[in-house]
């Protein structure tokens, strides 16, 4: 499904984009914080960006572990190898700034992708899902499906992920706006890997499954594991809103065990991010009046889009995401760049 999405999205972008550039010496490295299925779409995105925009390279390089030092070493070696633009999911919201500054000193443009670094930073932009907003909207959808009352649990990602704190706060905000009818009985974090997620979520379901009325998950792996748990239990009483587009989550939606999921746009992040790096290397600069959004970490944020999908439109979710990517690309240069 992801592959299909990539093909369809890239083809559509190729046909519709009027801003195709060509700079064969731009070599973009797309570096996630560590191994994670969310970032897998960046690989195809980079390949398509090379094809569609005429870049020299746009390669997806994964650190072996979620470790800032390893990510730094990988980036340094890639730069040594000749990559001259870096798109990075920050290993740490502040710690990553050090290497971004050093790359800037070396004349290499960088941007934070899928997660932001805190300002002041030398990253040209932060291009990713407005994770707080996505978690807020997802929780709102969950509360609506629960009839505005009940107890919910929140399963989320790595504590070192700069997005995790934003997501926890956003869920609390949505619950706070529910008028006292909704209560968070458990927040389980640091489980964006299968072993800890499986252990902790199943332990929670065994101990408190009878008390909880809703589950919101704001990271990929917890969404998959929670969807599997509900499917295995055959429980349709507990409502759940997940995140991302893993096949397990999508199937659970179709089968009625999961109410819906908040889609993100990793393909669009890699594809458009590579395009922007090439533009910047080609001499473009960001407009002083560019319509940036602000988050808790930066005021140079561009939302790569998010959309809620439930059983009514789960089969056509690719179209929804493709349209978001196309809309961003169509207007990006005009809105953000002086070339």
């Amino acid at each position, binding site marked *: 499904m992801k592959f299909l999405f990539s093909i369809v999205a890239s083809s559509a972008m190729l046909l519709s984009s009027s801003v195709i550039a060509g700079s064969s010496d731009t070599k973009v490295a797309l570096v996630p914080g560590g191994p994670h299925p969310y970032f897998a779409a960046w690989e195809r995105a980079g390949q398509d960006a090379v094809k569609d925009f005429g870049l020299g390279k746009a390669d997806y390089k994964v650190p072996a572990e979620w*470790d800032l*030092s390893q990510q730094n070493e990988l980036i340094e070696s890639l730069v*040594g190898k000749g990559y001259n633009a870096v798109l990075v999911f920050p290993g740490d919201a502040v710690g990553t700034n050090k290497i971004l500054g050093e790359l800037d000193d070396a004349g290499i443009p960088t941007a934070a992708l899928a997660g932001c670094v805190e300002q002041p930073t030398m990253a040209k932009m932060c291009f990713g899902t407005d994770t707080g907003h996505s978690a807020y909207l997802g929780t709102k959808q969950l509360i609506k499906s629960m009839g505005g009352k009940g107890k919910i649990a929140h399963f989320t990602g790595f504590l070192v992920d700069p997005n995790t704190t934003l997501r926890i706060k956003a869920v609390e905000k949505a619950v706070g706006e529910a008028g006292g009818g909704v209560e968070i009985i458990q927040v389980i974090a640091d489980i964006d890997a299968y072993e800890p997620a499986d252990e902790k979520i199943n332990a929670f379901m065994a101990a408190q499954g009878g008390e909880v009325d809703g589950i919101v998950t704001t990271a990929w792996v917890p969404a998959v594991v929670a969807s599997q748990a509900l499917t295995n239990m055959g429980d349709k009483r507990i409502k759940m809103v997940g995140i991302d587009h893993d096949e397990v989550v999508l199937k659970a939606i179709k089968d009625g065990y999961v109410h819906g999921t908040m889609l993100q746009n990793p393909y669009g992040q890699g594809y458009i991010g590579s395009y922007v790096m090439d533009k910047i290397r080609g001499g473009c600069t960001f407009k002083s009046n560019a319509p940036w959004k602000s988050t808790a970490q930066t005021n140079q944020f561009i939302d790569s889009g998010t959309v809620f999908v439930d059983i009514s439109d789960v089969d056509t979710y690719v179209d929804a995401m493709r349209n978001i990517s196309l809309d961003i690309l169509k207007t990006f240069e005009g809105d953000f760049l002086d070339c």
Partner: protein
Amino acid sequence: MRGKKNPFPLSLWPAKNIMKTLMNKKIPNFIFTNQFGLLCLVLVFIAIFSTVTDGFTSRFNIFALSRVIAIDIMIGLAMMVVILTGGLNLALGAIGVSAAMFGGWCMEIMGIPVIPSIILTLSMGAFLGWVNGIITVKTGVHSFIVTLATMSIYFGFMTMLTEAEAFRRLPELFTDFGSAKLFNKYVSPLLLLSVATCFILFYLFRFTDIGRKLIAAGANPEAAELSGISVSTMFIHCHVLSGLLGALAAIMLTTRIGAAIPSMAGQLGMDWLLPAFLAPVIGGTLLSGGKLSVFGTMLGAVLVTLLTNGLYLLDVGEFWIRFFLGIILLFAVLLDKAREYFTLKSVIVS
């Protein structure tokens, strides 16, 4: 203890001593040492990677290499001093991170100036090492088990106290040190710090009374005890030194990344374990204790970092690099066993 003099400390001596050594025909002995083999391997790999990869000799890459090598040397030395006792320090990463977080707290929250904060950080590392040493000596349990337990205790305690929040607003004076560039921007000052530490440790183990006692205690505890050496005290000293060096490595890493971060050495600090074992074991430090090689550890760290960097540049996948490092460690351990059988143990410090 009483063996032939090691010919290696050529680098320590002034020219006339080097000439004297040459006159004494000790150079041929050096050629058969582990360090010479490592030096040759390092030079061979430099030649290979310079030829077959893009960017290996670029200023950016050499600077980055010097910084990584510096930290890996320090981590290797921190493990080496415990291996000397025939023990292990699995809590090394946890000690380093705990000390770094303490240092971050001192600078950011308490507003303590940089130098006193560094001293406090080193003291914290030494204290945590002392706890390891005391438990190991008093209980008689192997340090593998003790430090496996304290790894979780230290890391858990640190996470609980800091709530996994990083200290990110450290003084510029401190963080700029990690970015500073020397020698036409090719070398990090962190490397000079590591090399200086190597010389200090070499001097300690080769030329001081306490250093020789540490080695004697590791080589044959019973004989050392009968000779009037307090083996327990020596083992505790080794753990203290390990904690101190671990804290120093963590300080260097903190200056490099510009923040004290709980995940800086991975979960429970375990990301340090591979470089910590690789450098000393490749370098010629015996896992059974009683023999160490300071400059071998240094060269071991250089070799491992060079290999990692070169494989990156050759586009070998990150996961394959891990695989290769594991193979190298296995090979080094086998070499260690062979060394026990086939080498003279007369050269105890090199």
